[in-house]
Structures are given as structure tokens and as C-alpha cells.
């Protein structure tokens, strides 16, 4: 506490002493320190961009951007190398789509139940379970998808071949369970922000609970719900361990969820494990695919942040 002024002077003096008698360098120093700390998070973003751009630029010096974004063959570490990123993108989108088919209905159902139906005691039971679901490490989800879910699906599959050992279906399903808490808790926040006046008005007009939930609360909370889903998509696209373990390591331009396919994140992880030397084209692909991933998730995160702000402005 370097800045503690003496209190006595203020008490004894003329009105002039009510003004600050000495500059408080300590207060200034503290403020400088705080600003410096908050710059770390800004520098993190700058660092990510600086880390991504130079190697990605070198990569696009050798591979044309058009070939990269429209090519259908991804084999950067083989000879002859091909750098068409589409198989990774479709792999990512397939797994994300399956995850959303699981997470959106279940997450929204859970949110509506917790916000509109559940009594406090029921809420107090379910909320922590959702938090636990969100806190389980993703390697554990991947392990479960590969070792438990895929064999189960292979056993019960009615007719045909059934899923391969590595497949998009198990990985996507487990990923969907993983993002339920994200979607449920953010959309529940949005529904809780809807004023009770709206509910009371609808009940007074004779609406049932279901009508209030689906025709009043849900539309009123829509921007927050969309924000939650967009954030869920962003998390699904960026998730690495589940797909690296359970969806396989083979780039595969296919829309069959029973096949294995590599996602963008799984490729980055696989290439990273390889410990490639700096400056090689293989090393640079990590950053090229990473840039694409970063831009995709950045756009979605910003859309989501925007939408959350909008409903906060309307109701709070």
C-alpha cells in the first residue's frame, strides 16, 4: 500500500486540503498494472494471428488458394502430394451435422424443461448433472465412442455392413451429447431473461403451458437460442479429441456417416504429433488448415456474441 495518504492532514486543514494534496502514484501504478494484464488477452489474439499468417502465407505461395479450397484430394504428407482441403471440410461438416441432430433437440428440450416446467428441486438435481457432462474431458468421450458405442452399433445394426471401426456416426453422436450443456445452459439463460409479464399475459388469455413455452417464450428468446446453437456449432467444429480417436485418420470425401473420415482438427492433431520440421510444406499445412478453422469459428463466435447482446438489450 504505497499510496495511503495521511488522513490527519485532511482533518486539520483549510478547505483547500479537501482537494488531493499529493499525486497518488500508487493508484496510477496499479492502474497501469491492471491495463497491462488485460492486454495479455488482446495479445493472445494477436499471437494467434501472428502464429497463423506467415506459415499459411508460405503455404499459399506454393499451393494456389483455389486448388486448396476446391480440391477433392487431401494427401499432403505423401508423394505426390495433393492439397485439396474439401475432404477435411466435408468430414468436419458431417460430424458437426450429426452432433447438431443430437444436441439441438435434446439441448433445447432440456432448456425448455428447466426454464418453464422444472420445480426448483428438480432443477437443482439436473443442473449439476449437465455441468458434469460439460466437464468430462473429451478424450473420455472419444474413448467411449470408439470402445463402447461403435461396437454396440455394429452389433445392433439391422442388415448391411454397419459402421466401420472408425466412423462419423459414433463420433458425432458423442460430440452431440458433449455440446448439450452448451446449448441447454445458454438457451435457458435466454428463456429466463424473458419477462414473466409475457407468460402471465398468455396464461390470462387461456394458453396452456405448452402454448406459452412454444409460442411465447421460445420466439421471445429466439436470438439467444440461435446464439446458443451457433456457439454449439463452433464448439463442434473445433472439437479435436473425439474425432481424432473415434472418426479415424483417413481423409474421405464421403457423406456416409458409417465411414471413417478425418476432420480439420483431427488432421492438425495428426500432423502435430508427427513433429514436422519447421519450414516444410507439411508443417505449413497445419497453419493453413488452422487458419481456415480459426476463421470459421471466429465468424460463428462473433455472430453468437452479437445475438446474445441483442436479447440482453431487449430484456435487461
Amino acid at each position, binding site marked *: 500500500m504505497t499510496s495511503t495518504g495521511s488522513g490527519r492532514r485532511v482533518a486539520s486543514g483549510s478547505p483547500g486540503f479537501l482537494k488531493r494534496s499529493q499525486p497518488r502514484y500508487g493508484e496510477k501504478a496499479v492502474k497501469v498494472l491492471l*491495463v497491462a494484464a488485460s492486454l495479455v488477452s488482446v495479445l493472445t489474439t494477436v499471437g494467434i494471428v501472428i502464429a497463423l499468417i506467415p506459415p499459411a502465407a508460405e503455404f499459399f505461395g506454393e499451393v494456389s488458394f483455389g486448388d486448396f479450397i476446391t480440391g477433392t484430394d487431401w494427401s499432403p504428407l505423401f508423394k505426390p502430394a495433393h492439397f485439396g482441403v474439401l475432404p477435411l471440410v466435408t468430414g468436419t461438416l458431417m460430424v458437426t451435422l450429426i452432433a447438431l441432430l443430437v444436441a439441438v433437440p435434446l439441448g433445447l428440450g432440456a432448456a425448455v424443461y428447466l426454464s418453464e416446467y422444472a420445480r426448483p428441486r428438480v432443477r437443482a438435481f439436473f443442473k449439476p448433472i449437465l455441468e458434469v457432462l460439460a466437464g468430462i474431458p473429451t478424450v*473420455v468421450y472419444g474413448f467411449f465412442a470408439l470402445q463402447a458405442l461403435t461396437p454396440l452399433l455394429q452389433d445392433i445394426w439391422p442388415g448391411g455392413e454397419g459402421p466401420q471401426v472408425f466412423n462419423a456416426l459414433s463420433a458425432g453422436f458423442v460430440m452431440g451429447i458433449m455440446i448439450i450443456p452448451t446449448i441447454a445452459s445458454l438457451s435457458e439463460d435466454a428463456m429466463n431473461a424473458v419477462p414473466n409479464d409475457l407468460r402471465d399475459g398468455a396464461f390470462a388469455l387461456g394458453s396452456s403451458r405448452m402454448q406459452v413455452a412454444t409460442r411465447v417464450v421460445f420466439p421471445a428468446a429466439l436470438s439467444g437460442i440461435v446464439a446458443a446453437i451457433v456457439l454449439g456449432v463452433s464448439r463442434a467444429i473445433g472439437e*479435436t479429441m473425439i474425432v481424432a480417436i473415434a472418426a479415424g485418420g483417413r481423409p474421405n470425401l464421403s457423406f456416409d456417416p458409417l465411414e471413417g473420415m478425418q476432420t480439420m482438427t483431427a488432421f492438425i492433431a495428426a500432423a502435430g504429433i508427427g513433429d514436422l520440421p519447421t519450414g516444410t510444406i507439411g508443417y505449413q499445412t497445419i497453419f493453413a488448415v488452422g487458419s481456415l478453422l480459426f476463421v470459421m469459428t471466429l465468424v460463428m463466435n462473433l455472430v453468437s456474441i452479437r445475438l446474445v447482446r441483442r436479447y440482453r438489450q431487449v430484456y435487461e
Partner: protein
Amino acid sequence: MGSPVLDKGPEAGVPEVRRLKSDGTPWRERLFQLSLWASLAVGVVFLGCLLVYIVVEAWPRLNFRILTNFPDIIDPSQAGAQSAIMGTIWVIGFTALYCLPVGFLTAIYLEEYADPERWWNRAVEINIQNLAAVPSIVYGILGLGIISRGLGFGQTVLTASLTLSLLVLPTVIIAAREAIRAVPQSIREASLALGATQWQTIWRQVLPAAVPGMATGSILALSRAIGEAAPLLLLGGLTFITFNPTGPESAFTVLPIQIFNWISQSRSEFVSLAAAAIVILLVILLAMNSLAIWLRNRYSHRW
């Protein structure tokens, strides 16, 4: 009230009066509520299946060898996770050392000093919200390109903990901000009215009241870092390590990476080994979460 209409029983009553009474919840309402309840139940059932499956798989390997022995690629029955457990402790210890002070100071700045009308403060805020949702593997790329190779820290505990601290920094900041915001404005005003400076108010009034909430949030953020594997895959965490770290310059492995390594092995003995390591990881996370909940309940203020 003994009115003649009601005395004759419902059948003979006036139809208009009867219609006002509820004729039971319609089946659509019940079905809707049931499907909502079921969507929550799916998550609960999944969690139950996951935990039971892992404990059953891990059962043959849940003995002290998993704690005391080092990874062994030739004989899985003698393999253990000691280097991974110690690696996790080292890495998370340094992560806490780096990210907690920075996170707390940022939270204090944003809550107590920053004017939210200024564009740069809003930019810092949006930046933090975005960073919280950036995929963890992108932090791995940052760690690989800048910290490991750019600054030349290599594949060490130091690189891993710096990367993880940047990864959980947004979570720490957001949690600490909520704890600081929960301290009522009247306490600040009372302190300032008594002549305390702004920092004296923060240091002697706001922070003591906010510390339990900040601690709870930090423990939860660090438990996220403990389970994180993706960024460390890029930082050499997958190399075969049969020794404990001896300092920040050491090579390392951590539990989630060791688990990933064992999952990737083709022999089936490694499955139960991976499951046993998962049990250890989950027990550590459970302990940390219990501590966080205990702190929250023990010290939480009701203003």
C-alpha cells in the same frame, strides 16, 4: 353452496359452467412435457452408462501399479501412469501460476476501472468472449508456432503451461468478473465515502468479499485445463516419457495425452489401461469440483 344445479349432479348441470372446469391435461401437453423430460434424461442416462462402462473396463487394472509404475510399451500389465500424473501436476501448477494473477487483474480492470462506453474496453470484452470459444487446438498452434518454436522454449513443461494458461485465461477472467460483480455497489460507495482511494476500496473491501467466488471459478477453469489434450498433442506431449518432470525445462506427458496414447495402441490390454487412467483423471476432476462446490457453499455471501 347447495345450489340446485349442482345438487342434480354434473350430468344435469349447465354445459357452459362445466366447460370452464379443466377436463384434464390434453394428451399433447403431456406428450410435450414427457419429451422435454426425456431430452434431459438422455444426458443423465448417457453419463451413467459412460461412468459404469469405464469403471467396469478399468476394474482389472485398478491397482497401485497404475500409480507407481511408468509407461511400459512392451508389457502393458506392468505399465503405470506415474509420469503422466506427475506431469499433470507440474503443468497445471505452472498454468495456475501464470493464468490466475493475469486473469484476476484483468477482471479487476474490466469491472472496477474500465468505462464500458469506450470502444477499446468493449473490444477487450468481445475479444475475451471470442477467445473463450476459440478451439483449443488453435491454442496448440499458437503454442507450437510462437512459444515452442518462435521463442524456442521447445517441448517442455514451460511451453505446455504457458499454452494452457492462455487457453483458460478467458474462463478465469469471466468467472472472476462475475464474482467481483456480485459484490454490492453500496459497499464500494461506503468505502469511498469514508475517504478510501479506489485501490484501497478494491483491496480491502471488494476483493475479500469476492475471493471465494474467484477461487471457485479458478478451480473449475483449471479442471478444464487438466482434461485438455488437443493443444498438447502439438507440443510434443505424445513422446514416450518414462520419467517425472524435474523442472519447467523438462519434457513431459500428462494424463489425457497418456490416455490418448494408450487408446491408439492396438493390443486390447491397453484398453483397460486407458480406462484405469481415465478413472484417475475423473477422480482428480471430481476432487477439484467438490472442493470448488465446498468453497462456494462455505464462503458464499448473501447480500
